[in-house]
Protein backbone atom coordinates (compact mmCIF):
# COMPACT_ATOMS: atom_id res chain seq x y z
CA UNK A 1 0.00 0.00 0.00
CA UNK A 2 1.14 3.49 -0.62
CA UNK A 3 0.10 7.04 -1.29
CA UNK A 4 0.62 8.64 -4.66
CA UNK A 5 1.73 12.21 -5.26
CA UNK A 6 1.70 14.02 -8.60
CA UNK A 7 4.09 16.96 -8.88
CA UNK A 8 3.30 19.13 -11.88
CA UNK A 9 2.87 16.09 -14.08
CA UNK A 10 2.38 16.87 -17.76
CA UNK A 11 1.95 14.56 -20.72
CA UNK A 12 2.22 15.40 -24.40
CA UNK A 13 1.35 13.22 -27.32
CA UNK A 14 3.35 14.73 -30.16
CA UNK A 15 2.43 18.41 -29.85
CA UNK A 16 -0.86 17.93 -28.00
CA UNK A 17 -0.85 18.46 -24.25
CA UNK A 18 -3.23 15.86 -22.84
CA UNK A 19 -2.41 16.31 -19.16
CA UNK A 20 -1.53 19.77 -17.92
CA UNK A 21 0.40 20.43 -14.70
CA UNK A 22 -1.33 17.83 -12.60
CA UNK A 23 -0.71 18.38 -8.89
CA UNK A 24 -2.51 15.97 -6.57
CA UNK A 25 -2.00 13.74 -3.58
CA UNK A 26 -3.80 10.43 -3.29
CA UNK A 27 -3.69 9.11 0.23
CA UNK A 28 -2.63 5.67 1.37
CA UNK A 29 -5.59 3.30 1.24
CA UNK A 30 -7.86 5.79 -0.46
CA UNK A 31 -10.38 5.00 -3.19
CA UNK A 32 -9.71 7.84 -5.59
CA UNK A 33 -11.51 8.38 -8.88
CA UNK A 34 -10.69 10.40 -11.96
CA UNK A 35 -13.91 11.17 -13.76
CA UNK A 36 -14.40 13.09 -16.98
CA UNK A 37 -15.63 12.89 -20.54
CA UNK A 38 -13.73 10.80 -23.06
CA UNK A 39 -10.50 12.39 -24.16
CA UNK A 40 -10.00 14.31 -20.90
CA UNK A 41 -6.75 12.50 -20.16
CA UNK A 42 -7.95 10.26 -17.35
CA UNK A 43 -6.74 6.98 -18.86
CA UNK A 44 -3.42 8.60 -19.68
CA UNK A 45 -3.02 9.51 -16.02
CA UNK A 46 -3.69 5.92 -15.05
CA UNK A 47 -1.16 4.63 -17.57
CA UNK A 48 1.40 7.05 -16.19
CA UNK A 49 0.82 5.74 -12.66
CA UNK A 50 1.19 2.19 -13.97
CA UNK A 51 4.38 3.06 -15.80
CA UNK A 52 2.92 2.14 -19.18
CA UNK A 53 3.34 5.71 -20.40
CA UNK A 54 6.33 7.87 -19.52
CA UNK A 55 5.58 11.35 -18.15
CA UNK A 56 6.62 14.29 -20.28
CA UNK A 57 7.29 16.55 -17.30
CA UNK A 58 6.99 16.52 -13.52
CA UNK A 59 7.23 13.67 -11.04
CA UNK A 60 5.07 10.84 -9.76
CA UNK A 61 5.85 9.64 -6.25
CA UNK A 62 4.85 6.46 -4.46
CA UNK A 63 5.41 6.75 -0.70
CA UNK A 64 7.50 9.87 -1.31
CA UNK A 65 9.80 8.05 -3.73
CA UNK A 66 9.97 9.20 -7.33
CA UNK A 67 8.92 6.32 -9.60
CA UNK A 68 9.26 8.08 -12.96
CA UNK A 69 11.91 5.71 -14.25
CA UNK A 70 10.58 2.49 -12.77
CA UNK A 71 8.99 -0.18 -14.97
CA UNK A 72 5.45 -1.39 -14.21
CA UNK A 73 6.99 -4.48 -12.64
CA UNK A 74 9.15 -2.44 -10.27
CA UNK A 75 6.27 -0.16 -9.31
CA UNK A 76 4.27 -3.12 -8.05
CA UNK A 77 0.92 -1.94 -9.34
CA UNK A 78 -1.98 -4.05 -10.55
CA UNK A 79 -4.40 -2.95 -13.19
CA UNK A 80 -7.88 -3.94 -14.33
CA UNK A 81 -8.60 -3.05 -17.92
CA UNK A 82 -11.85 -2.06 -19.56
CA UNK A 83 -11.74 -5.09 -21.85
CA UNK A 84 -10.57 -7.29 -18.92
CA UNK A 85 -7.55 -8.34 -21.03
CA UNK A 86 -7.59 -11.91 -19.78
CA UNK A 87 -5.11 -14.29 -21.35
CA UNK A 88 -7.36 -16.32 -23.65
CA UNK A 89 -5.08 -19.35 -23.86
CA UNK A 90 -4.99 -19.85 -20.10
CA UNK A 91 -7.56 -21.26 -17.72
CA UNK A 92 -9.13 -19.07 -15.05
CA UNK A 93 -6.72 -20.62 -12.57
CA UNK A 94 -3.70 -19.78 -14.68
CA UNK A 95 -4.95 -16.28 -15.36
CA UNK A 96 -5.25 -15.54 -11.66
CA UNK A 97 -1.99 -17.29 -10.87
CA UNK A 98 -0.04 -15.52 -13.61
CA UNK A 99 1.29 -12.53 -11.63
CA UNK A 100 2.53 -14.91 -8.91
CA UNK A 101 4.22 -17.12 -11.50
CA UNK A 102 6.04 -14.05 -12.73
CA UNK A 103 7.19 -13.43 -9.16
CA UNK A 104 8.45 -17.02 -8.98
CA UNK A 105 6.24 -17.92 -6.04
CA UNK A 106 6.20 -21.63 -5.12
CA UNK A 107 3.44 -23.83 -6.51
CA UNK A 108 1.98 -24.59 -3.06
CA UNK A 109 1.68 -20.93 -2.22
CA UNK A 110 0.10 -20.22 -5.61
CA UNK A 111 -2.44 -22.98 -5.06
CA UNK A 112 -3.43 -21.55 -1.69
CA UNK A 113 -3.63 -17.97 -2.91
CA UNK A 114 -5.63 -18.76 -6.04
CA UNK A 115 -8.14 -20.75 -3.99
CA UNK A 116 -8.45 -17.93 -1.46
CA UNK A 117 -9.05 -15.36 -4.21
CA UNK A 118 -11.46 -17.65 -6.06
CA UNK A 119 -13.40 -18.05 -2.84
CA UNK A 120 -13.48 -14.31 -2.27
CA UNK A 121 -14.81 -13.64 -5.77
CA UNK A 122 -17.07 -16.67 -6.13
CA UNK A 123 -14.98 -18.26 -8.88
CA UNK A 124 -14.33 -21.63 -7.25
CA UNK A 125 -16.26 -23.70 -9.74
CA UNK A 126 -14.88 -21.89 -12.77
CA UNK A 127 -11.15 -22.36 -12.22
CA UNK A 128 -10.73 -24.85 -15.04
CA UNK A 129 -12.63 -22.85 -17.64
CA UNK A 130 -11.19 -20.70 -20.38
CA UNK A 131 -12.10 -17.00 -20.54
CA UNK A 132 -14.25 -17.50 -23.61
CA UNK A 133 -16.50 -19.85 -21.63
CA UNK A 134 -17.30 -17.14 -19.09
CA UNK A 135 -19.96 -14.44 -18.95
CA UNK A 136 -19.00 -10.77 -18.85
CA UNK A 137 -19.42 -10.53 -15.09
CA UNK A 138 -17.35 -13.65 -14.51
CA UNK A 139 -14.56 -12.36 -16.73
CA UNK A 140 -14.64 -9.15 -14.77
CA UNK A 141 -14.17 -11.11 -11.55
CA UNK A 142 -11.24 -13.03 -13.00
CA UNK A 143 -9.62 -9.75 -14.00
CA UNK A 144 -10.13 -8.48 -10.46
CA UNK A 145 -8.73 -11.69 -9.04
CA UNK A 146 -5.63 -11.43 -11.18
CA UNK A 147 -5.12 -7.90 -9.90
CA UNK A 148 -5.64 -8.48 -6.20
CA UNK A 149 -3.73 -11.75 -5.86
CA UNK A 150 -0.43 -9.88 -5.81
CA UNK A 151 -1.42 -7.59 -2.97
CA UNK A 152 -0.09 -4.68 -5.00
CA UNK A 153 0.89 -1.30 -3.62
CA UNK A 154 -1.60 0.38 -5.88
CA UNK A 155 -4.67 -0.92 -7.58
CA UNK A 156 -5.55 0.74 -10.91
CA UNK A 157 -8.88 0.36 -12.68
CA UNK A 158 -9.61 1.69 -16.13
CA UNK A 159 -13.39 1.81 -16.63
CA UNK A 160 -13.69 -1.77 -15.39
CA UNK A 161 -17.48 -1.82 -15.38
CA UNK A 162 -18.31 -0.14 -18.65
CA UNK A 163 -18.61 -3.39 -20.62
CA UNK A 164 -21.21 -4.85 -18.26
CA UNK A 165 -24.95 -4.48 -18.59
CA UNK A 166 -26.70 -2.03 -16.29
CA UNK A 167 -27.78 -4.49 -13.62
CA UNK A 168 -24.47 -6.30 -13.40
CA UNK A 169 -22.70 -2.98 -13.24
CA UNK A 170 -24.53 -2.00 -10.08
CA UNK A 171 -23.82 -5.42 -8.58
CA UNK A 172 -20.11 -5.23 -9.38
CA UNK A 173 -20.00 -1.67 -8.09
CA UNK A 174 -21.06 -2.89 -4.67
CA UNK A 175 -18.57 -5.73 -4.96
CA UNK A 176 -15.72 -3.33 -5.72
CA UNK A 177 -16.63 -1.22 -2.74
CA UNK A 178 -16.75 -4.28 -0.50
CA UNK A 179 -13.36 -5.46 -1.82
CA UNK A 180 -11.81 -2.09 -1.14
CA UNK A 181 -13.17 -1.99 2.38
CA UNK A 182 -11.77 -5.46 2.97
CA UNK A 183 -8.36 -5.04 1.37
CA UNK A 184 -7.79 -1.31 1.97
CA UNK A 185 -5.39 -1.03 -0.97
CA UNK A 186 -4.89 2.40 -2.50
CA UNK A 187 -7.17 2.34 -5.53
CA UNK A 188 -7.16 4.72 -8.46
CA UNK A 189 -10.27 4.39 -10.54
CA UNK A 190 -11.06 5.94 -13.89
CA UNK A 191 -14.56 6.31 -15.29
CA UNK A 192 -16.73 8.55 -17.40
CA UNK A 193 -19.77 7.53 -15.39
CA UNK A 194 -20.33 10.16 -12.72
CA UNK A 195 -22.78 7.96 -10.77
CA UNK A 196 -20.13 5.25 -10.51
CA UNK A 197 -17.57 7.80 -9.38
CA UNK A 198 -19.89 9.21 -6.73
CA UNK A 199 -20.94 5.89 -5.26
CA UNK A 200 -17.50 4.27 -5.10
CA UNK A 201 -15.02 6.92 -4.20
CA UNK A 202 -13.61 8.51 -1.13
CA UNK A 203 -12.63 11.48 -3.26
CA UNK A 204 -13.08 12.28 -6.92
CA UNK A 205 -11.20 14.52 -9.32
CA UNK A 206 -13.25 15.89 -12.20
CA UNK A 207 -11.09 16.23 -15.30
CA UNK A 208 -11.66 18.20 -18.44
CA UNK A 209 -9.17 18.69 -21.25
CA UNK A 210 -6.30 17.51 -19.12
CA UNK A 211 -6.99 19.86 -16.21
CA UNK A 212 -8.45 18.94 -12.83
CA UNK A 213 -11.58 21.05 -12.44
CA UNK A 214 -12.33 20.03 -8.89
CA UNK A 215 -11.05 17.48 -6.41
CA UNK A 216 -13.09 16.74 -3.33
CA UNK A 217 -15.38 14.25 -1.62
CA UNK A 218 -18.34 13.30 -3.84
CA UNK A 219 -20.96 15.23 -1.89
CA UNK A 220 -18.97 18.46 -1.92
CA UNK A 221 -18.43 18.14 -5.67
CA UNK A 222 -22.12 17.55 -6.10
CA UNK A 223 -23.35 20.30 -3.82
CA UNK A 224 -20.72 22.90 -4.62
CA UNK A 225 -19.41 22.37 -8.15
CA UNK A 226 -16.32 24.50 -8.71
CA UNK A 227 -17.48 25.64 -12.12
CA UNK A 228 -20.14 25.27 -14.78
CA UNK A 229 -18.42 22.22 -16.31
CA UNK A 230 -18.47 20.28 -13.05
CA UNK A 231 -22.07 21.25 -12.41
CA UNK A 232 -23.04 19.97 -15.81
CA UNK A 233 -20.94 16.81 -15.75
CA UNK A 234 -21.65 15.59 -12.23
CA UNK A 235 -25.25 14.69 -11.65
CA UNK A 236 -27.74 13.09 -13.97
CA UNK A 237 -29.70 14.76 -15.43
CA UNK A 238 -27.26 17.69 -15.51
CA UNK A 239 -27.70 20.90 -13.55
CA UNK A 240 -30.00 23.63 -14.91
CA UNK A 241 -28.49 27.00 -15.72
CA UNK A 242 -30.35 30.29 -15.91
CA UNK A 243 -28.80 33.61 -16.88
CA UNK A 244 -28.92 36.38 -14.29
CA UNK A 245 -27.70 39.90 -13.58
CA UNK A 246 -26.32 41.27 -10.33
CA UNK A 247 -28.47 44.26 -9.30
CA UNK A 248 -26.58 45.14 -6.14
CA UNK A 249 -23.80 43.55 -4.12
CA UNK A 250 -24.78 44.74 -0.63
CA UNK A 251 -27.40 43.52 0.01
CA UNK A 252 -26.93 40.93 -2.73
CA UNK A 253 -29.68 40.98 -5.29
CA UNK A 254 -29.62 38.98 -8.48
CA UNK A 255 -32.27 39.41 -11.11
CA UNK A 256 -33.16 36.54 -13.38
CA UNK A 257 -36.16 36.22 -15.64
CA UNK A 258 -38.06 38.95 -13.83
CA UNK A 259 -37.59 37.57 -10.34
CA UNK A 260 -35.05 38.77 -7.83
CA UNK A 261 -33.25 36.39 -5.51
CA UNK A 262 -30.71 36.86 -2.75
CA UNK A 263 -28.78 33.57 -2.35
CA UNK A 264 -26.02 33.11 0.22
CA UNK A 265 -22.65 33.13 -1.53
CA UNK A 266 -19.04 32.44 -0.47
CA UNK A 267 -17.74 35.52 -2.29
CA UNK A 268 -19.17 38.68 -3.73
CA UNK A 269 -19.69 38.58 -7.49
CA UNK A 270 -17.23 40.77 -9.41
CA UNK A 271 -19.02 40.79 -12.71
CA UNK A 272 -22.55 41.77 -13.46
CA UNK A 273 -23.41 38.69 -15.53
CA UNK A 274 -23.91 35.44 -13.67
CA UNK A 275 -25.28 31.95 -14.28
CA UNK A 276 -27.61 30.50 -11.70
CA UNK A 277 -27.39 26.75 -11.30
CA UNK A 278 -29.98 24.51 -9.72
CA UNK A 279 -30.21 20.72 -9.70
CA UNK A 280 -33.29 19.24 -11.40
CA UNK A 281 -34.27 17.30 -8.28
CA UNK A 282 -34.39 20.57 -6.32
CA UNK A 283 -36.92 22.14 -8.66
CA UNK A 284 -40.47 21.13 -7.78
CA UNK A 285 -43.32 21.47 -10.23
CA UNK A 286 -46.91 21.54 -9.04
CA UNK A 287 -50.24 22.27 -10.67
CA UNK A 288 -51.21 24.81 -8.02
CA UNK A 289 -49.76 28.23 -7.48
CA UNK A 290 -47.95 28.72 -4.15
CA UNK A 291 -45.84 31.39 -2.44
CA UNK A 292 -42.72 32.33 -4.42
CA UNK A 293 -43.65 30.05 -7.28
CA UNK A 294 -42.84 30.85 -10.89
CA UNK A 295 -45.23 30.27 -13.71
CA UNK A 296 -44.00 27.89 -16.40
CA UNK A 297 -45.15 25.90 -19.44
CA UNK A 298 -44.68 22.15 -19.31
CA UNK A 299 -42.93 20.70 -22.34
CA UNK A 300 -42.13 17.08 -21.60
CA UNK A 301 -43.06 14.60 -18.96
CA UNK A 302 -40.97 11.51 -18.09
CA UNK A 303 -42.12 9.12 -15.35
CA UNK A 304 -39.15 7.83 -13.33
CA UNK A 305 -40.94 5.53 -10.91
CA UNK A 306 -41.21 7.25 -7.56
CA UNK A 307 -41.41 10.70 -9.18
CA UNK A 308 -41.63 12.29 -12.64
CA UNK A 309 -39.10 14.37 -14.54
CA UNK A 310 -40.67 17.48 -16.01
CA UNK A 311 -39.10 19.59 -18.75
CA UNK A 312 -40.57 23.06 -18.79
CA UNK A 313 -40.03 26.49 -20.25
CA UNK A 314 -39.68 29.47 -17.96
CA UNK A 315 -39.59 32.74 -19.88
CA UNK A 316 -37.77 31.13 -22.80
CA UNK A 317 -35.30 29.14 -20.67
CA UNK A 318 -35.54 25.35 -20.72
CA UNK A 319 -35.33 23.78 -17.26
CA UNK A 320 -35.74 20.28 -15.83
CA UNK A 321 -37.51 19.65 -12.56
CA UNK A 322 -39.47 16.95 -10.75
CA UNK A 323 -43.05 16.54 -9.76
CA UNK A 324 -44.82 14.17 -7.41
CA UNK A 325 -46.63 11.21 -8.90
CA UNK A 326 -50.02 12.56 -7.98
CA UNK A 327 -49.70 15.80 -9.93
CA UNK A 328 -51.43 15.89 -13.26
CA UNK A 329 -49.60 18.29 -15.58
CA UNK A 330 -49.78 17.19 -19.21
CA UNK A 331 -47.37 18.57 -21.80
CA UNK A 332 -48.36 22.05 -22.94
CA UNK A 333 -50.17 22.91 -19.71
CA UNK A 334 -49.28 25.70 -17.33
CA UNK A 335 -47.71 24.79 -13.99
CA UNK A 336 -45.86 26.38 -11.11
CA UNK A 337 -42.28 25.80 -10.05
CA UNK A 338 -40.51 26.40 -6.75
CA UNK A 339 -36.90 25.91 -5.72
CA UNK A 340 -35.14 26.30 -2.38
CA UNK A 341 -32.77 29.28 -2.31
CA UNK A 342 -30.12 27.43 -0.32
CA UNK A 343 -29.70 24.86 -3.10
CA UNK A 344 -28.92 27.54 -5.68
CA UNK A 345 -25.32 27.88 -6.93
CA UNK A 346 -24.15 31.00 -8.73
CA UNK A 347 -21.41 31.04 -11.34
CA UNK A 348 -19.54 33.90 -12.95
CA UNK A 349 -20.92 33.97 -16.50
CA UNK A 350 -17.55 34.90 -17.99
CA UNK A 351 -15.09 32.59 -16.21
CA UNK A 352 -17.64 29.89 -15.38
CA UNK A 353 -16.31 29.72 -11.81
CA UNK A 354 -18.58 29.34 -8.81
CA UNK A 355 -19.01 32.48 -6.75
Amino acid sequence: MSGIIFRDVTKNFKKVEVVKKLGLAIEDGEFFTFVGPSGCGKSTILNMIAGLEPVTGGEILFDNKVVNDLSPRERDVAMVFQSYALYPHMSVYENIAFPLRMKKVSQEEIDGEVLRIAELLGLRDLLKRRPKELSGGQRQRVALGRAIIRKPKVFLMDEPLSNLDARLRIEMRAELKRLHQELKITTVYVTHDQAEAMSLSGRIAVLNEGVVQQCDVPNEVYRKPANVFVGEFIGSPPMNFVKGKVLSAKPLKIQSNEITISPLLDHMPEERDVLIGIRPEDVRITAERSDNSIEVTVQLFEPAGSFDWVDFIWNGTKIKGISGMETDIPAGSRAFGTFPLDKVVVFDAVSGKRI
Partner: protein
Amino acid sequence: MKKVFFYLSLILVLLYCSGPVLWQIITSLKPDSELTIIPPLLPLRPTAAHYLTIIKQQAFLKIMFNSAAVATSTTMLSIVIGSLAAFGLAKLRVRYKSFILGFILSVSMFPPIATVSPLYIIIRSLGLRDTLTALIITYTTFSLPLSIWILTNFFREIPDEIYLAAKVDGCSPFQIFHRIMLPLALPGIFTAAILVFIFSWNEFLFALTFTSTSAARTIPVAIALFPGMHEIPWGDIAAASIIVTVPLILMVFAFQKRIIEGLTSGAIKG
Protein backbone atom coordinates in the same frame (compact mmCIF):
# COMPACT_ATOMS: atom_id res chain seq x y z
CA MET B 1 -32.04 -27.28 -56.79
CA LYS B 2 -29.81 -24.54 -55.45
CA LYS B 3 -27.88 -27.13 -53.49
CA VAL B 4 -27.40 -29.35 -56.50
CA PHE B 5 -25.98 -26.41 -58.41
CA PHE B 6 -23.71 -25.54 -55.52
CA TYR B 7 -22.23 -29.01 -55.27
CA LEU B 8 -21.98 -29.33 -59.03
CA SER B 9 -19.92 -26.17 -59.29
CA LEU B 10 -17.89 -27.22 -56.27
CA ILE B 11 -17.01 -30.51 -57.97
CA LEU B 12 -16.13 -28.68 -61.20
CA VAL B 13 -13.78 -26.31 -59.39
CA LEU B 14 -12.22 -29.18 -57.47
CA LEU B 15 -11.67 -31.15 -60.66
CA TYR B 16 -10.15 -28.11 -62.34
CA CYS B 17 -7.74 -27.52 -59.45
CA SER B 18 -6.79 -31.11 -58.89
CA GLY B 19 -6.63 -31.92 -62.60
CA PRO B 20 -2.84 -31.78 -62.93
CA VAL B 21 -2.40 -33.84 -59.78
CA LEU B 22 -4.87 -36.46 -60.96
CA TRP B 23 -3.11 -36.57 -64.31
CA GLN B 24 0.18 -37.06 -62.52
CA ILE B 25 -1.27 -39.92 -60.49
CA ILE B 26 -2.68 -41.59 -63.59
CA THR B 27 0.64 -41.23 -65.41
CA SER B 28 2.59 -42.64 -62.49
CA LEU B 29 0.45 -45.80 -62.54
CA LYS B 30 0.58 -46.42 -66.28
CA PRO B 31 3.07 -48.89 -67.71
CA ASP B 32 5.58 -47.32 -70.12
CA SER B 33 3.82 -48.71 -73.18
CA GLU B 34 0.59 -46.83 -72.40
CA LEU B 35 2.18 -43.54 -71.35
CA THR B 36 1.70 -41.56 -74.51
CA ILE B 37 -1.53 -43.12 -75.72
CA ILE B 38 -5.06 -41.92 -75.08
CA PRO B 39 -7.39 -43.77 -74.81
CA PRO B 40 -7.28 -45.43 -72.43
CA LEU B 41 -7.52 -42.48 -70.01
CA LEU B 42 -7.18 -44.72 -66.98
CA PRO B 43 -4.38 -47.33 -66.92
CA LEU B 44 -5.69 -50.70 -68.03
CA ARG B 45 -3.02 -52.55 -66.10
CA PRO B 46 -1.92 -50.23 -63.25
CA THR B 47 1.66 -50.80 -62.23
CA ALA B 48 3.81 -49.82 -59.26
CA ALA B 49 6.95 -50.17 -61.33
CA HIS B 50 7.70 -46.42 -61.47
CA TYR B 51 7.37 -46.08 -57.71
CA LEU B 52 9.69 -49.02 -57.19
CA THR B 53 12.29 -47.53 -59.52
CA ILE B 54 12.25 -44.25 -57.59
CA ILE B 55 12.42 -45.81 -54.15
CA LYS B 56 15.19 -48.18 -55.14
CA GLN B 57 17.45 -45.29 -56.12
CA GLN B 58 19.87 -44.54 -53.29
CA ALA B 59 20.31 -40.97 -54.45
CA PHE B 60 16.61 -40.24 -54.30
CA LEU B 61 16.39 -41.01 -50.58
CA LYS B 62 19.38 -38.76 -49.99
CA ILE B 63 17.69 -36.05 -52.02
CA MET B 64 14.44 -36.43 -50.08
CA PHE B 65 16.48 -36.03 -46.92
CA ASN B 66 18.18 -32.92 -48.34
CA SER B 67 14.87 -31.32 -49.15
CA ALA B 68 13.43 -32.15 -45.75
CA ALA B 69 16.51 -30.78 -43.97
CA VAL B 70 16.55 -27.58 -45.99
CA ALA B 71 12.81 -26.96 -45.71
CA THR B 72 12.66 -27.71 -41.98
CA SER B 73 15.69 -25.59 -41.08
CA THR B 74 14.50 -22.72 -43.25
CA THR B 75 11.06 -22.85 -41.68
CA MET B 76 12.45 -22.86 -38.17
CA LEU B 77 14.89 -20.04 -38.80
CA SER B 78 12.33 -17.99 -40.65
CA ILE B 79 9.73 -18.42 -37.90
CA VAL B 80 12.11 -17.71 -35.02
CA ILE B 81 13.60 -14.58 -36.60
CA GLY B 82 10.30 -13.59 -38.20
CA SER B 83 8.23 -13.81 -35.03
CA LEU B 84 10.75 -11.84 -32.99
CA ALA B 85 10.86 -9.12 -35.63
CA ALA B 86 7.10 -9.15 -36.05
CA PHE B 87 6.51 -8.85 -32.29
CA GLY B 88 8.76 -5.82 -32.18
CA LEU B 89 7.12 -4.24 -35.17
CA ALA B 90 3.59 -4.94 -33.96
CA LYS B 91 3.78 -4.18 -30.24
CA LEU B 92 6.94 -2.41 -29.20
CA ARG B 93 7.73 1.26 -29.60
CA VAL B 94 9.68 1.30 -32.83
CA ARG B 95 10.21 4.34 -35.01
CA TYR B 96 9.47 4.29 -38.74
CA LYS B 97 7.50 1.04 -38.47
CA SER B 98 5.78 1.33 -41.82
CA PHE B 99 9.04 2.26 -43.52
CA ILE B 100 10.73 -0.81 -42.07
CA LEU B 101 7.85 -3.05 -43.13
CA GLY B 102 7.91 -1.62 -46.65
CA PHE B 103 11.65 -2.09 -46.85
CA ILE B 104 11.32 -5.71 -45.76
CA LEU B 105 8.67 -6.31 -48.37
CA SER B 106 10.83 -4.80 -51.09
CA VAL B 107 13.42 -7.52 -50.45
CA SER B 108 11.02 -10.09 -51.80
CA MET B 109 10.25 -8.04 -54.86
CA PHE B 110 13.48 -8.77 -56.71
CA PRO B 111 12.92 -11.57 -59.19
CA PRO B 112 15.16 -14.48 -58.19
CA ILE B 113 16.68 -14.60 -61.66
CA ALA B 114 18.07 -11.10 -61.10
CA THR B 115 19.73 -11.99 -57.82
CA VAL B 116 20.93 -15.46 -58.62
CA SER B 117 24.24 -14.53 -60.25
CA PRO B 118 25.54 -12.21 -57.53
CA LEU B 119 24.31 -14.68 -54.92
CA TYR B 120 26.16 -17.47 -56.70
CA ILE B 121 29.38 -15.45 -56.52
CA ILE B 122 28.87 -14.81 -52.82
CA ILE B 123 28.09 -18.44 -52.10
CA ARG B 124 31.11 -19.60 -54.04
CA SER B 125 33.49 -17.20 -52.36
CA LEU B 126 32.15 -18.30 -48.97
CA GLY B 127 32.93 -21.87 -49.97
CA LEU B 128 29.33 -22.90 -49.49
CA ARG B 129 28.73 -24.23 -52.97
CA ASP B 130 26.88 -27.54 -53.03
CA THR B 131 26.03 -27.38 -49.32
CA LEU B 132 22.67 -27.39 -47.57
CA THR B 133 23.76 -24.30 -45.63
CA ALA B 134 23.86 -22.25 -48.81
CA LEU B 135 20.24 -23.13 -49.57
CA ILE B 136 19.07 -22.60 -45.99
CA ILE B 137 20.61 -19.12 -45.82
CA THR B 138 19.19 -18.08 -49.18
CA TYR B 139 15.73 -19.46 -48.51
CA THR B 140 15.58 -17.85 -45.08
CA THR B 141 16.42 -14.49 -46.62
CA PHE B 142 13.72 -14.77 -49.22
CA SER B 143 11.04 -16.20 -46.94
CA LEU B 144 11.56 -13.77 -44.05
CA PRO B 145 9.54 -10.92 -45.59
CA LEU B 146 6.59 -13.26 -45.95
CA SER B 147 6.73 -14.58 -42.40
CA ILE B 148 7.36 -11.12 -40.91
CA TRP B 149 4.34 -9.72 -42.73
CA ILE B 150 2.03 -12.56 -41.81
CA LEU B 151 3.14 -12.59 -38.18
CA THR B 152 3.08 -8.81 -37.78
CA ASN B 153 -0.57 -8.88 -38.78
CA PHE B 154 -1.32 -11.69 -36.35
CA PHE B 155 0.46 -9.94 -33.48
CA ARG B 156 -1.33 -6.71 -34.29
CA GLU B 157 -4.68 -8.44 -33.92
CA ILE B 158 -3.85 -9.38 -30.35
CA PRO B 159 -5.39 -6.54 -28.30
CA ASP B 160 -2.91 -4.04 -26.89
CA GLU B 161 -4.54 -4.35 -23.50
CA ILE B 162 -3.39 -7.97 -23.25
CA TYR B 163 0.13 -6.82 -23.90
CA LEU B 164 -0.20 -4.04 -21.32
CA ALA B 165 -1.77 -6.41 -18.79
CA ALA B 166 1.18 -8.75 -19.11
CA LYS B 167 3.52 -5.82 -18.65
CA VAL B 168 1.73 -4.74 -15.47
CA ASP B 169 1.68 -8.34 -14.27
CA GLY B 170 5.45 -8.19 -14.21
CA CYS B 171 6.58 -9.69 -17.50
CA SER B 172 9.74 -8.61 -19.27
CA PRO B 173 9.27 -8.00 -23.01
CA PHE B 174 10.70 -11.41 -23.79
CA GLN B 175 8.40 -13.10 -21.28
CA ILE B 176 5.44 -11.33 -22.86
CA PHE B 177 6.63 -12.62 -26.20
CA HIS B 178 6.93 -16.27 -25.33
CA ARG B 179 4.32 -16.66 -22.61
CA ILE B 180 1.51 -14.56 -24.05
CA MET B 181 2.06 -13.44 -27.62
CA LEU B 182 3.48 -16.62 -29.10
CA PRO B 183 0.69 -18.94 -27.88
CA LEU B 184 -1.90 -16.45 -29.08
CA ALA B 185 -0.34 -16.08 -32.49
CA LEU B 186 -0.06 -19.86 -33.02
CA PRO B 187 -2.49 -19.89 -35.96
CA GLY B 188 -0.32 -17.26 -37.62
CA ILE B 189 2.83 -19.18 -36.85
CA PHE B 190 1.39 -22.30 -38.47
CA THR B 191 0.21 -20.38 -41.50
CA ALA B 192 3.59 -18.77 -42.01
CA ALA B 193 5.39 -22.06 -41.34
CA ILE B 194 3.41 -23.93 -43.96
CA LEU B 195 3.93 -21.27 -46.59
CA VAL B 196 7.64 -21.05 -45.91
CA PHE B 197 7.95 -24.83 -45.90
CA ILE B 198 6.20 -25.16 -49.24
CA PHE B 199 8.32 -22.40 -50.70
CA SER B 200 11.57 -24.06 -49.64
CA TRP B 201 10.36 -27.52 -50.61
CA ASN B 202 9.52 -26.42 -54.14
CA GLU B 203 12.20 -23.82 -54.84
CA PHE B 204 14.04 -24.59 -58.06
CA LEU B 205 16.25 -21.84 -59.39
CA PHE B 206 18.61 -21.33 -56.44
CA ALA B 207 18.74 -25.04 -55.78
CA LEU B 208 19.72 -25.70 -59.36
CA THR B 209 22.39 -22.99 -59.34
CA PHE B 210 23.98 -23.64 -55.97
CA THR B 211 24.17 -27.42 -56.12
CA SER B 212 26.06 -29.70 -58.45
CA THR B 213 25.93 -33.16 -56.89
CA SER B 214 23.43 -35.13 -54.88
CA ALA B 215 25.24 -33.92 -51.75
CA ALA B 216 22.91 -30.94 -51.51
CA ARG B 217 20.54 -31.42 -54.41
CA THR B 218 16.85 -31.01 -53.62
CA ILE B 219 13.78 -32.68 -55.09
CA PRO B 220 12.69 -30.20 -57.79
CA VAL B 221 16.20 -30.17 -59.22
CA ALA B 222 16.54 -33.91 -59.03
CA ILE B 223 13.26 -34.45 -60.85
CA ALA B 224 14.25 -31.98 -63.54
CA LEU B 225 17.51 -33.84 -63.99
CA PHE B 226 15.79 -37.21 -64.41
CA PRO B 227 15.64 -37.20 -68.19
CA GLY B 228 18.12 -39.70 -69.52
CA MET B 229 20.04 -39.81 -72.77
CA HIS B 230 17.41 -41.33 -75.02
CA GLU B 231 14.02 -40.77 -73.45
CA ILE B 232 12.19 -38.76 -70.85
CA PRO B 233 10.97 -41.14 -68.13
CA TRP B 234 7.56 -39.54 -67.67
CA GLY B 235 6.31 -42.35 -65.49
CA ASP B 236 9.22 -42.07 -63.06
CA ILE B 237 8.91 -38.29 -62.94
CA ALA B 238 5.23 -38.55 -62.15
CA ALA B 239 5.84 -41.13 -59.44
CA ALA B 240 8.56 -39.00 -57.90
CA SER B 241 6.32 -35.91 -57.93
CA ILE B 242 3.57 -37.79 -56.15
CA ILE B 243 5.95 -39.13 -53.54
CA VAL B 244 7.30 -35.69 -52.70
CA THR B 245 3.91 -33.99 -52.68
CA VAL B 246 2.44 -36.38 -50.14
CA PRO B 247 4.43 -34.96 -47.18
CA LEU B 248 3.24 -31.45 -48.05
CA ILE B 249 -0.39 -32.48 -48.25
CA LEU B 250 -0.14 -34.39 -44.98
CA MET B 251 1.43 -31.40 -43.28
CA VAL B 252 -1.23 -29.00 -44.47
CA PHE B 253 -3.97 -31.33 -43.29
CA ALA B 254 -2.28 -31.78 -39.95
CA PHE B 255 -2.01 -28.05 -39.28
CA GLN B 256 -5.24 -27.00 -40.92
CA LYS B 257 -7.19 -27.28 -37.70
CA ARG B 258 -4.72 -25.12 -35.83
CA ILE B 259 -4.85 -22.45 -38.48
CA ILE B 260 -8.60 -22.15 -38.38
CA GLU B 261 -8.87 -22.32 -34.60
CA GLY B 262 -9.71 -18.88 -33.32
CA LEU B 263 -7.39 -18.81 -30.35
CA THR B 264 -7.97 -15.20 -29.44
CA SER B 265 -11.72 -15.47 -28.95
CA GLY B 266 -12.71 -14.61 -25.41
CA ALA B 267 -9.71 -12.41 -24.78
CA ILE B 268 -11.83 -9.32 -24.56
CA LYS B 269 -15.51 -8.69 -24.47
CA GLY B 270 -17.76 -10.69 -26.76
